[in-house]
């Protein structure tokens, strides 16, 4: 049975399969090609493309990819994907910054005990020879805060005081519950526990309005 001859449009569609060797029945196309120069040129063009496609060099994988895959399969599952997540690196970045700050904080040199520093202190209140009301009688003394290795004792007249002593970071505040009217000596003694060195700071004040002797 004679088949209807192909026209150029039909032939054009078959040419790629023809040059690829995939046309089941090439006879009608070959018949058309015998009579059509334009389609023969198309075949030539298709052969060129066909040859180029068949000989194209493949894209090469990036160097190191094989090693990365081998490493990844040896790691716990999911880790490799995890490390490629932006959030993972955000987390790692934040954690690193926190760790560095923590390390810096911990490594920050502590205030060194200045063993060679002299015992220092100052009576802030009262001033020497002050006249003060009994109700206002108190002692405010500041001493070297960097010397926690010293003992601080507060005395009133000839004995250690029994009132309230508050000590915060080198600041001593003493308040007496009751005090007699008259002259009083209040003094502070600092003692270096290591060297045994002592230093005293005194104030003589006149108290009025206290209990009469």
């Amino acid at each position, binding site marked *: 049975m004679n088949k209807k001859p192909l026209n150029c449009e039909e032939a*054009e*569609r*078959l040419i*790629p*399969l023809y040059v*690829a060797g*995939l046309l089941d029945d090439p006879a009608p196309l070959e018949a058309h090609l015998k009579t059509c120069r334009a389609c023969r040129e*198309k075949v030539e*063009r*298709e052969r*060129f*493309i066909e040859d*180029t*496609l*068949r000989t*194209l*060099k*493949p*894209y*090469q*994988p*990036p160097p190191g*990819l*094989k090693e*990365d*895959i*081998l490493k*990844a*399969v*040896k790691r716990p*599952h999911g880790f*490799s*994907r995890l490390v*490629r997540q932006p959030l993972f690196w955000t987390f790692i970045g934040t954690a690193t910054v926190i760790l560095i700050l923590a390390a810096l904080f911990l490594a920050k040199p502590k205030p060194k005990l200045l063993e060679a520093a002299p015992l220092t202190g100052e009576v802030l209140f009262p001033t020497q020879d002050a006249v003060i009301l009994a109700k206002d009688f108190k002692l405010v003394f500041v001493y070297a805060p960097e010397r926690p290795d010293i003992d601080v004792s507060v005395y009133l007249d000839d004995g250690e005081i029994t009132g309230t002593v508050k000590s915060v970071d080198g600041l001593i505040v003493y308040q007496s519950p009751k005090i007699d009217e008259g002259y009083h000596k209040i003094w502070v003694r600092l003692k270096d526990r290591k060297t045994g060195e002592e230093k005293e700071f005194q104030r003589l004040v006149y108290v009025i309005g206290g209990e009469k002797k």
Partner: protein
Amino acid sequence: LDEVKDPKKEESFEEVIERYLPRIFNLVYYRVEDYEEARDLTQDIFLKAFKAYPSFKGNSSPYTWLYRIALNHTTNYLKKRGRMKNVSLDEIFEKNPESFGYTEDFKSELREEHIREKVMQLPHIYRDVIVLFYFESMSIDEISRLLNVPQGTVKSRLSRGREVLSRWLKELWEKI
């Protein structure tokens, strides 16, 4: 990795990586069109394959098995990225591909690169069969089984893909 070597299988997983990595990478790159993404996806694919390797029965070649994983994985990825779309042939032909930048010292390497670029611009349904048929030298039957489509469909896609390429490459042809 030696632990995953199954006596029923001819290759250890390391040998599978060694043998198929370049081909899988090539396939993935043609699908996703981005070198870095292709790198990451290829690594994912081999990790997936590594996990699945113990259950790989060896009924098909590791090559077909890996290709299926690669195709599924990249398809899912492209769908998520919204880069998987169907384009009609008319739309493709309406495209006006840029000039090939022909110069007097036009080299075959340059020509190859242009053809690669044009393959990359093909819609996925055509690109996949072109890549598998020409670059991976798969038969129509193998492609049909791999893509789970009839052989006639593979041929039709191959023919259409080639038709599109021919039109795009016409300019190149005229200049050589």
